C-alpha cells in the first residue's frame, strides 16, 4: 500500500517535471553549481571531520578531532584552539559595537542636506572601495614597524613612537582601530534607514517639545531596529570569520592575532602535514558557535520593531 503511494508520488513528480521541464532546465545551472560547489563540499567536510584525511588518504575514523578540540590538558590542543575562539570573540565584541556606533554617529552627522553633502559622504565611503588586503598592506607599512609612517609623523610633532603592530601589547588595539576604517559602508546603510523614518513622527515629537536625545532614543533608534538587527547578525558572522588579517599580519606577535578562521586555514594548508580532518572539525565547531549565536539573536529579537507588519 505504502509502495503504491510512493509510486504515485514519484509518478506525479515525474509528470510535473515533464510538464515543467523548461523551469528545471533554467534552474539546472544553479542546481548543478550548488550541488558541486556548496552541498558536496559541506557534506564532505562533515565526513572528513571524523577522519585524519590529509588530502591523500584516510587511515583513521572516529571522534578524535573533536576530542582534540576539547582537550584542555597541560599541552592539549584545546588550550590554543579556544584561545583563538576567545580572541575572535573579543574582536567581535569590541569591533562590532564600536563600528555600529561610529557609523551611526557619522550617518547622523551627514544626514543634513547641506551644500556638498553628497561629496562629503562619498569621501567617507571611498575607503570601502579599497580591497581589504591592499588596505592591510598600507596599514602595515604605516604601523607595522617602529620606523613606520605614523611613527615618523609622531616624531615630527615631538611625540614618542608607538609600537602599534610590532608589540604584542598594542597589536590588538591597533587592529580594532584600523578595522573602523570601513565605517563608510555602515554609514550608507544607516543613512538609508534614517531616511525611512517617517518625518511625521519627528514633527509630532517637536510639537510635544521632545529634545534631540528624546527623539533619538524614542523615534530614531526604535525605527532603525530592523537595520540594527540585520547589521548585528551580519557583523557577528563576519567578525567570527575574520581572516584577511592573516595576509598582512600573519598570526601576530606571539600569535596574538591568531583568529579561529586563520587557525582553520593553517591547520589545513600550513606546515608540512596537512590535517584536513582537524581543520574540517574546527570549521564545524565554528559553524555551531555561529549558528547558536544567530539562533539566540533571533530568539531574543522581540526588541526589533517591524512596524505594522507581522514579525
Amino acid at each position, binding site marked *: 500500500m505504502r509502495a503504491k503511494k510512493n509510486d504515485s508520488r514519484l509518478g506525479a513528480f515525474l509528470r510535473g517535471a515533464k510538464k515543467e521541464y523548461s523551469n528545471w532546465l533554467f534552474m539546472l545551472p544553479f542546481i548543478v553549481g550548488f550541488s558541486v560547489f556548496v552541498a558536496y563540499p559541506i*557534506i*564532505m567536510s*562533515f*565526513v572528513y571531520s571524523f577522519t585524519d*584525511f*590529509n*588530502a*591523500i*588518504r*584516510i*587511515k583513521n575514523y572516529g571522534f578524535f578531532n573533536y576530542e582534540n578540540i576539547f582537550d584542555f590538558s*597541560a*599541552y592539549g590542543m584545546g588550550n590554543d584552539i579556544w584561545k583563538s575562539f576567545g580572541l575572535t570573540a573579543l574582536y567581535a565584541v569590541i569591533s562590532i559595537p564600536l563600528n555600529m556606533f561610529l557609523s551611526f554617529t557619522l550617518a547622523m552627522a551627514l544626514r543634513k542636506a547641506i551644500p556638498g553633502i553628497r561629496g562629503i559622504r562619498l569621501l567617507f565611503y571611498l575607503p570601502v572601495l579599497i580591497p581589504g588586503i591592499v588596505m592591510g598592506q598600507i596599514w602595515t607599512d604605516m604601523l607595522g*614597524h617602529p620606523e613606520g609612517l605614523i611613527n615618523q609623523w609622531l616624531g615630527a610633532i615631538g611625540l614618542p613612537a608607538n609600537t602599534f603592530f610590532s*608589540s*604584542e*601589547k598594542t597589536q590588538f588595539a591597533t587592529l580594532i582601530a584600523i578595522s573602523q576604517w570601513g565605517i563608510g559602508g555602515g554609514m550608507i546603510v544607516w543613512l538609508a534607514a534614517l531616511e525611512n523614518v517617517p518625518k511625521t513622527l519627528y514633527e509630532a515629537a517637536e510639537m510635544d517639545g521632545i529634545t534631540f536625545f528624546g527623539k533619538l532614543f524614542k523615534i530614531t533608534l526604535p525605527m532603525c531596529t530592523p537595520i540594527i538587527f540585520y547589521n548585528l547578525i551580519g557583523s557577528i558572522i563576519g567578525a567570527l570569520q575574520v581572516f584577511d588579517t592573516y595576509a598582512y599580519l600573519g598570526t601576530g*606577535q*606571539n600569535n596574538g592575532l591568531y583568529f579561529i578562521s586563520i587557525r582553520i586555514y593553517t591547520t589545513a*594548508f600550513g*606546515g*608540512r*602535514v*596537512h590535517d584536513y580532518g582537524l581543520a574540517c572539525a574546527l570549521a564545524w565547531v565554528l559553524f555551531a558557535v555561529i549558528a547558536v549565536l544567530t539562533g539566540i539573536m533571533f530568539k531574543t529579537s522581540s526588541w526589533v520593531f517591524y512596524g505594522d507588519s507581522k514579525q
Partner: protein
Amino acid sequence: MKKLICSLLAVCCALTLCVAAGCGGNGGNNNDIDALLKQIDVTADDEYAGELVILTTNEASEVLTMESLIKAFNEKYPYIRVTHRTEVLDGYYNGLTNNTGVAIQTGDHSLMPDVFWLSQDFLQSIYDQEDILFPLYRIDEKDDGFSENVFADEALAVSKANNNLYMIPRDYNQVVMYFNEKIFDAAKVAYPKPQMSKDEFIQMLAALRAGLDASDEVNDYGVPYKTAVTNLVDVNALWDSWVWPLLKGFGAQVVTPDGQVALDSQETFNAVSFWKSLRKNNYVGSVSTTNAGVDFRMQQAAIYFHARATLTDITSSTKQIRGVQKLGVTALPQFGEKYAIGGGSSGYAMYLNAEHKTEAWLFLKFVASEAGQNAFCSTGNGVPSIKSLLSDDNAVWRTYTSPAFGDAFDNDAFVYGMDFEEKPFTSIHDYTRYIPASVQEDVLVSLRTCFAAIDGDASSDDELKANITNQAGLIDYLIKQAQNKK
C-alpha cells in the same frame, strides 16, 4: 521530524556514496613496488625515446637550473621530450599532496609529474604520506649503472627516509658568511676569516659599527653607509638551517636518540641569550623578519648568512635592488663551543606512479652524473652533491666567476669543514629522525619560538628560560601523543 529523518538519510546516503567512491583512500598502499620496478628499463640508453614531465617551483633560480639541466639532458638523450611545469613555492607542497590525492582517487596519474623538485626539509613528511615517493633505492639495487656512493655523505644522509634513498641530492648546501667588501673597506675593517671565534666576530661587528660611524662613504644609492646600514648582519634567524646549528654549537640538544626531549637546558638558553645580545646591540635585525637578504642586496647590511643557492640573487643588479658588487665569502664563525654549520640538500624525486618511469630514472641518473652536476653548477647557484666534483679544482662550480666577486671570494667556504674529523655540517635530520613525522613541523615551530620570543614583550632572561621550558614540554607532549596514536 519527518524532514529531519529525510535529511539524516540523505547525509547517510552521501557518506556511503563517498566511501564507495574511494574517499576512504585505498590507492597507493597496495602498490606493488616489484610490479612498478618492472616498468623501468634500466638498460635504456641515449637512443631511448619518450616523454618526461618535471615539476619545480617557479623561483628564478629553480627555473634557470632546470633549463640548464634539460638542455644538457637533451644533448645526451635527444629523443626524450621534456616538459617543465612550475608552481609557486607557497603552494608547491600543498599542490603536490592534493594532486596525489586526486590522482589516486581518479586513477589518472597523468596529473602528476614524473619527477619533482624536493627539499630535504620536506622529504620526511612527503615520505610519510606513502603514496608520493618512488623508493629509488630499489632501482639502485637493480641498476648496475648507478650507485648512491657517488654522493657526498652529508648530501646522501639528508636524501634518505627510513634510511633508504628517496631523493637524488642535486646540491651540497652549507651556510656561509657572505660579506660586502665595500662596506668593510668603508669601515676600514679587515675582511672576516674562516671559523672566527665568537669574541672575534663580536669585536669585528663593534669595529664595523665604529668604522662606519666615522666614515662618509656612500653606497651605490648615494646613501652614506653609516645611515644606510642599520643592522650589520642580515639573516633569517628563524631558518631551520640556522636555528638548529646555532643551538648545537652551544651544546644544546632537542631530542636524544632514545626519544627523550632535552631542549630545556642551560645550553639552549645560552644560544638564545647570545642572539638576544646581538639583537640588543642592533648587530642583527628583527628575529622574525620575512625579507631576509633584502638589506644585504640593497647594500644596507655588511654580512649575510646564507647558502650558495642564493648567489646570483645577491649579485644581480636591478633598478630597485643594486645587488652586492664586491662580494666576499668565507666560512661561518664558531659561535659556541662546537663548530656547527647548517646545511642540507635539495634534489629530485620520482612520483610513485609516474607514467614515464624509465625517462624519469634516466633524468635522475643524469642529475647524479658529472655532466648533470656541471650543467647545474653552470648557473652559479650550485655546489655539486657528488664527491668527485667537490674536490675537483676544475669543476664548473669552482671555475664559475662573476664581475661582482670581490678579492675575498673563497669557494672553499662552501665546503669548509668537509675534511674535518668532526664534521661541522649540521642538518635538522640530526634530531628529526627521532621524532614522528606528524609532529616534526610542530617541533621546528617550537625551536623557532625559542628565538622568536626575543622580539616579543616577554624577553627578560627569566621569561626566555620559561619559554624554553614551555616549548620543551610541548615537544614532549606532542611526541608522546604521536606515539600513542601509532
